[in-house]
Structures are given as C-alpha cells and as structure tokens.
C-alpha cells in the first residue's frame, strides 16, 4: 500500500492539531475569503496574513517554513493572470513588441498581477496547513456537521479510502506496461501517438472493470457487517472552550487585517 503517497496529514501533538476540525475548516475558508476581499496592493495587510500563517506553522510545530515549501503547486497557473499586466488601464511602463502584438505593461496591471499571485499564495498556504493538521476523515466529519449533504461526504469518504487501493492497481498496470515496452537504445520506442493513447485507453477500461467488480465485493462485505447506508464514526466532535477562543481570536485578527488593508 502506498498510503503515504497521498496522505498530507502530518502527525504532531499541538494546539492546532487538537482543535475541532470544524474550527479549522471555517477559519481556513474565512481566511481565504478575507484574502479575496483585500484590495490590490494592500501590502501591509498581506504581510499580516503571512504572519498569521507563520504563527499557525509554529503553533502546529511543523516548522516555520512548512507551508511555504509546499506552496508552489499553483505557480504554473500564474501564466493565466499574466495578461492582467497589459489589460488594465494605467500609467504605461514602456512598450514590448511580441509577434504581432504590442504589449504595454501598466502600473495598475503589474499591481493587479502581483496582488493576484500574493493572494493565491497566501490562500494555498492556509489550505496546506488545514490538511497537514487535520485527518481527512475528521475533515469530512466537519463537512457533515456543516450540513454538506451526506451522500457527497459518503462518496468522498469512499474515494479517500479506495484511492490508495486503486492507485496501487494503477501502479501495477503501469509497471506491466513498462515491462512490456522494452526499447533498444537509439531506436524509437512504441508506436504512434494514437496507438499509445489506445493502450492507455485499454488500461483505463481495465481499471474501470477491476474497480467496478471490486465495488460489488466491497458492498457485499459491508452489507455483511451491517451497513445501512451511512458511515459511522467513533470521534465525537464537541466544541470546547479553546475551540471557541481560537475561532474568535482568528476572526478578530482577520477583521483587523481587513481594516489595515482598506484604511490607507
């Protein structure tokens, strides 16, 4: 089982780890909302947001740079925002000629581009902290408490449980393909792209059948153990005083950050 490949939970004993998952979920979402509400170029407010993240890193005993190190996954998407530099009216900062286009970067455009990147980068770090300090089943339980329909949380619970199993299945399929795809050095390996895609498609079909048949077995096994349509958990989540304290403290901090961002 490659169960460590996907699990983002980082086991530690800390205040943040012990918090009620609902608190962590709500704080994360509100933090990201607050980022979205901050105006472009509110550098001081952004800096305070980052301080908040650093504090969370430290309190969770993950090390100050933990979330930073993992926060670059969304970087390729920055490409999508690059046209903002040229599309927003403002003071011109020069002129570039690119193929048939004349690109005029503006100060407002650059400001917007950098603000988008900073917002996205801060938001991602908070989401990283959330899954690093909360076990996924607990997170799902929090969703259930927050009235996400049960059928969705149940499907996600199954997805989480079986993605490890089916990923192993994928590894086996990939290994089998590799074992049968020996090539001589200097010679072209494999057939045309269409042929390769077909092989991949057959693998997908094979994986589908294996999953489908497995789901039958799983259902029968669950039925024999008393499955009645819902998943039960032994973790009873109760909000205690420290949960409320943290919730209110972060809300207070975020209101302050908004004030700092808007009053200049």
């Amino acid at each position: 089982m490659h169960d460590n490949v996907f699990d983002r939970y980082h086991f530690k004993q800390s205040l943040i780890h012990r918090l009620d998952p609902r608190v962590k979920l709500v704080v994360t979402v509100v933090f990201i909302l607050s980022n979205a509400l901050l105006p472009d170029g509110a550098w001081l407010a952004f800096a305070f947001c980052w301080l908040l993240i650093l504090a969370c890193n430290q309190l969770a005993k993950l090390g100050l740079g933990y979330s930073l190190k993992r926060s670059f996954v969304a970087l390729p998407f920055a490409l999508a925002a690059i046209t903002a530099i040229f599309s927003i009216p403002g003071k011109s900062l020069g002129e570039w000629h690119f193929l048939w286009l004349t690109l005029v970067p503006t100060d407002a455009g650059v400001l917007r581009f950098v603000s988008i990147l900073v917002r996205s980068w801060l938001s991602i770090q908070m989401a990283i902290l959330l899954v690093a300090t909360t076990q996924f089943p607990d997170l799902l339980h929090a969703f259930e408490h927050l009235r996400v329909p049960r059928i969705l949380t149940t499907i996600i619970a199954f997805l989480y449980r079986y993605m490890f199993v089916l990923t192993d299945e994928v590894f086996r399929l990939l290994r089998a393909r590799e074992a049968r795809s020996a090539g001589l050095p200097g010679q072209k390996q494999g057939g045309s792209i269409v042929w390769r895609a077909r092989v991949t498609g057959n693998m997908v079909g094979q994986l589908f059948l294996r999953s489908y048949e497995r789901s039958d077995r799983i259902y029968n096994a669950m039925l024999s153990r008393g499955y009645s349509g819902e998943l039960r958990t032994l973790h009873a989540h109760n909000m205690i005083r420290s949960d409320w304290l943290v919730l209110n403290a972060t809300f207070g901090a975020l209101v302050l950050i908004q004030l700092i961002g808007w009053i200049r």
Partner: protein
Amino acid sequence: MHYSPTPMHIPDGFLTLAVSLICWAVTISLLAIAIRKTNKELGEKQVPLMGIMAAFIFAAQMINFPVAGGTSGHLLGGALAAIVLGPWAAMLVMTSVIAVQGLLFQDGGLIVMGANILNMGLLTTVVGYGLYRIVSKKSITTRLVISGMAAWLSVMTGALATAVQLWLSGTAQINIVVPAMLGVHALIGLGEALITVAALGFIFRTRPDLLGDGSASAQSGRGWVFAGLLITLVVVLLSPLASSSPDGLERVAEDMGFLNNSQAAPFHIIPDYTIPFLGATPLSTILAGGLGVMVVLGVAFLVGRSLRIGNQ
C-alpha cells in the same frame, strides 16, 4: 508522485469573490438536483459504487501516455463517467474527485471550488452525456465516434468556461486567454477523446451489459440532448467571437452589467456589488461580500435541509 495537475484547476485568488460566488450558486443548485435524482433513482447500493467510481476517476487520471517532448496526456474523465454511470451520478462522482483534489492536494482552491466543479465536473458531464444520448441506441461504432467527439467537446467547454471566468474576474484579457486556453485544450482534448473511445471500446468488448439498455446511462431523459447541444452551440459560437472580436463580447458583458470599464478594483465588476445606503466605500464592499457569502451559505443550508427531510 504521479499526480499531474492540469491547467484547468483554478487556484484561490484568481477569481474575484463575485464570480466565485455566482459559480458556487450555480454548482450548488445543479448538485441539489443531482442528489435528489440519485437518491430517488438509485438504491443504497449505488453509494459505495459511486465512491469506488470516484476513486477510479482519480486513479485513471494517473495513467498517462507520452505525447512528445516530455509532455504526457491523461484523462479528465467527465465524459467517460457520464457515459458509463449516467449524468446525475457522474456529476456527484466528478464533484467528489475535484473536491478531494482541491482539499487534499491544493490542486484548485476552496473559494473557487464552485467554479472548478462547474467547469470540470458539471459542464463536461452535460456535454459528454448530452451528445452521447443522441446515439445511445445506435451501433457501437457510431456510439464510439460520437463519444470521442463528446469527450473532446467536453474538455473544450471546460476550458472556455475557465477562460471566461478568468476574464470576468479581470484576471486575464479575453482575446488572449480564450485562444490560449482553447488551443492548449484542443490538444489535451484529443488525448481525452482517444482514451475515452479506447476505454469505452474495451468495456463494450468485455462487459457490454454495463452499457446496455438496462444501464443507468441508457435511462436518463431526452432533455440531456438539448442541454448538451445548447452548451455545444454556445461553445462553438462564443469561441471564435471571443478570439476575433473581443470588443463585441465586452459590449455584451457591459450591457448585462458584468463588466465595468475600469477593472482596477476587483469588486466593481458587478456595479451593484455595494450596499446602496453606504455608497461605494470599502466597508460597503466588505459588507456586500459578506452578504454574498451569507446568501450562498443560506442556499447551501436550505438545500441540505430539504434533502435531509427528503431522505427521511
């Protein structure tokens, strides 16, 4: 590890709150119908099946094939899921996959997850299934050809929706982002089409019963055909328009009140996105944002409650 993000997962920060919330509202409404339908049509047995199918889509996205120059193609799976599982179940399955990708791997943000689910989970399903439904009683060859086209179009639809949302948020320029997204995804879509056809062909050969008359995918109504064709039509008409004469599109958006000429402040995109008696002050914007969040939460809460009552 073998997990490769696709350029369609929007991270937080790239869409404005207004656009994100509108997408959430659309997504929640569609999901509510999907949940109601699946609860009615499918038994308790289907819930584990849908869970495993979600894990299947997740795992299948890891099976890649080398294309050229170190890049590789892989499946998104919306059309395949819709054809095999039927559209409503596929919506829930794709939603779960995107939710886990966003939650666990930060592949796609949380506030923008509504948009991501809409683009990659719901639109792809409607287009994929709608086109397939037209020929679902025809010969296997016809079905395979059409599902290939449906898979390609579903990817293009998702890409176009992503591009439009980025543009409405003032993050990207429409006459660049639309051709760029569509250009990249025209190729990704080819891979999607090839894999979908091959996978379906494999299932036809080995377990034809899963796609036969009694299957979930054969039973959904004709309405899907219209929905699928409608979205296809929009994609076909909108893409060249957005690429060649962006001014026309901006004009339409402006008339509809979406776009403000000065895109400097993110929340001027919807002019009414302020609270009237407070005027256009920052406080007003924040309150309006908060109000929008409350509305979406309220919709979600009511939907959840009505579903819960319906279950009992």
